[in-house]
Structure formats: C-alpha cells, structure tokens
C-alpha cells in the first residue's frame, strides 16, 4: 500500500513546479465556483456524519477534501 502511494505521490510532486498550462482557464471556472460544486460546503455536517459512521462501522479515514472552487486570489 505504501509503495503504491510512493509512485503517484513522487511523480506528482516532481512535476509540481513544471510549467504546465492550465487546461481550464481562470475565466472558465464559473461552474466550479458555484456553491453546489463545493467539495465540503458544510464542515460541521460532514464531520458529524463521519463521526456517526466511524462509531457504527469498523473502517475509518480518507474522508477529507479541499480545493476546486473558483481559483480566485
């Protein structure tokens, strides 16, 4: 599992500083900026439901998320 993590992780990090042209331009992000496309719109609700499932089930983790959105500064 950890070795599998290493390959995409390193590849992505190594390419992180490379000058790749964004294929979705900043002025094309109107749909992504819409609140209904938010990755985690209600953190109080999502952390509560994560807690409920964690108590009732054996699995846990990998529930996070941030990013997307309008990409504005």
């Amino acid at each position, binding site marked *: 599992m950890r070795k599998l993590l290493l390959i995409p992780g390193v590849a992505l990090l190594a390419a992180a500083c490379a000058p790749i042209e964004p294929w979705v331009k900043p002025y*094309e992000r109107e749909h992504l900026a819409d609140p209904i496309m938010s990755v985690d719109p209600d953190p109080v609700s999502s952390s509560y439901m994560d807690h409920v499932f964690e108590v009732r089930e054996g699995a846990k983790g990998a529930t996070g998320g941030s990013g997307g959105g309008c990409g504005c500064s």
Partner: protein
Amino acid sequence: MISPTLRRIAAAALLLCAFAAQAAVLPEDRADFMYHRYQGGGITVQGPSILVRKKLGESVSATANYYVDAITSASIDVVVSGASQYTEKRTQIGLSTDYLHGKTTYSANFVDSKENDYKARTWSLSISQDMFGDLTTLSIGYSQGKDRIFDSTDPTFADTADRRNYRLGLTQVLTRDMLLSLNFETITEEGYLQNPYRFMRYVNTAGSYSLGPEVFPRTRTGNAGSARVKYYLPWRAAIEGSYRFYADTWGIQAHTAGIEYTHPLWGRWVFDGSYRFYTQNSADFFMDLFPSANFQNFMARDKETSALSNHTLGAGVSYEFPVNKWASWLKRGTANLHYTYMMIDYKEFRDLRDYPPGTATPGTEPLYSLNANVIQAFFSFWF
C-alpha cells in the same frame, strides 16, 4: 509507516513550489449552529455543534468548535450484559488555525474530547498547496492522539491508547465541470483498543453459553484510499460518486460506495439526496460464539468487528436567506435540515436480547440488525 523518503520528498517539493506566484485563499469567515440527533439500536445521542471561523489579519484564520453528545443508551450490548440504561455526556472542543503564505496553507489543529470514562486529545498539522494554475490542490497531514480509557463499573481500571494518522490528499480540476478528490490515510494505533463494556461469549460445560472478557490485539494499522468525482450537470445541479477501500491488520476489509445528487430550485432552495453502501468482513479474531473460554489468544464479539453491511439513505433541504436586506456585514445565511436513515445488518453477530443462556441452542439465535434515524438541523452564516 509512511516511508521517511516520501515524507522528505513531499516536504522538499512543497517548499520549492512555495515560490510560484499568486496566492490561494484562506477559508471564509463563518458561524454554524447545529442540533444533531441519532436514534437507533436503543441509543439516542443528541446535542449541539457550534463552529466559528474568523480571519485575523491577511494571512491567518482561526476556528473554534464546541460539540456535545448527550447519550441515553439501552443498546443491545447494555441489555444483554444485564446492565441498565445509562446516560452520559461527551463534550468536545476543537481549535485550529490556518496560515496562508503564497500558495501554501499551513494548518494546526487540537481536539479535546471528554466523557466520564473516556478522554481523548488529538494534535494535527497539515500543509496544503495549490499548483498548476490552481487546478490542483495537494495536501499532507499528520495527527497524533492520546486516549485515556476508564471503566465506570470498575474504578481500578485505567488504560491508554496512542494514535497516529498520516494523510495525503489531492483535489484536481479535470474539466470546467468536473472535480476529482483522492485521499489516502494510514492510521496506526497502540494500546487498549477495545471497549471495556463489551464481552464475548463461549460454549460452556452445560451446553449453553457464558459471557467472558474480550481480548483485542494492542496494535492496529489500517490503510484507507478513497476517490470522489463531482460533476456539474447542465441544468444547474451536481452529482457526486465516491468509493473508499479500507484494510487493516485485524483482517477487516471494507468497501464504501456512495452517490449524492444536489438540485437547486426556485432561486433560494437546494435539495439533495444520497445513497451510501458500506460492507465489511469480520476481524480475524471475531466470533459470535467461541467454542471455549480460552479458544485463542485474541477474542472479540464486538459487533463493530463483525461482518456487516450498512445501507444509508439521506435527504436534505437548504434555504438561503435574503441577507442583503438584513445587515451589510452578513454575506450569506442558510437554514438547513438533513435526514439520514441507516439500515445495518450484522452478518455474524446474533441478537441475544430474547435468548438468555439456556433458551436456545447457542449459535441459532437470529442475526442482529438495527435501523437508525439521524437528524441534523443547522443555520450557517458567512460574514
């Protein structure tokens, strides 16, 4: 353990990229007031959850969260053990800060949870980086926790558990209508990892069963990987599909799959519906009925370590207030109501509530299942 090499590479790459131009953004200022209620399997848990987030200057944002679980429990575990219904209160406080520098956000978080027989503290650090013209957000995180476990029925009992979480997350804009989120997490735990109020059962000399203490391993390492894709539908709606795989050293493997549909209507209303499916197999050392009192070194009958499936349906509605008529400093306000219905079927855990020792051939009792109703009612304000 996440390899030290990967950790070093991640740290170095993020530092290098911190020089790229343009800034990412701190999370918005907000306040949320929630009432939550879980009712199912003989347990009712309800209480408030309050969150306040505020920017302090240009680069720093602070968040505080207050959460309470008021518990009334006559669960199957309580009833079968012969104990009476109990009430308990768990209070949790969380504090975090985010620091933005260029395209990198550094976050620190502390959570303290207290109830009369369980105290837990967790410290977390994470770094989040925007790159590729803000199409990609990469984040890494580390958490460390210390739990202290007591037994309200046994004043001499006290033990601890240590937890470490390693997280890696990637959010990628795929097209102008589609977002992908990938998350990986490794959790390692050491110490007392079982519930002091639960018990196992074994076949006794009389041919019926007796209850005995569970013995869990004192270490556990679990790995989880998930993928979520969110898509913008042309009539202004969103659909999200998700999948998570989990496997740990206790032999538990779980699959989680979900779908959620969000539909705005009439300008101020947003409706959403979701379905989630969860399935797990049982831990290697789980048995509903052990052949003898000391059958093997590790023995568990805890239903959360049994093979089980959970079908969950959710429905929610949100209303957006016309805040521009209220106050100029209020940017947005919503009222939200969400209902979730859970159906859990235990594949190897039997319902002994009507079957005390001597009433049925052990191992023939019906399998247990529970349905739960979960309600969330909350107001959110952005300022």
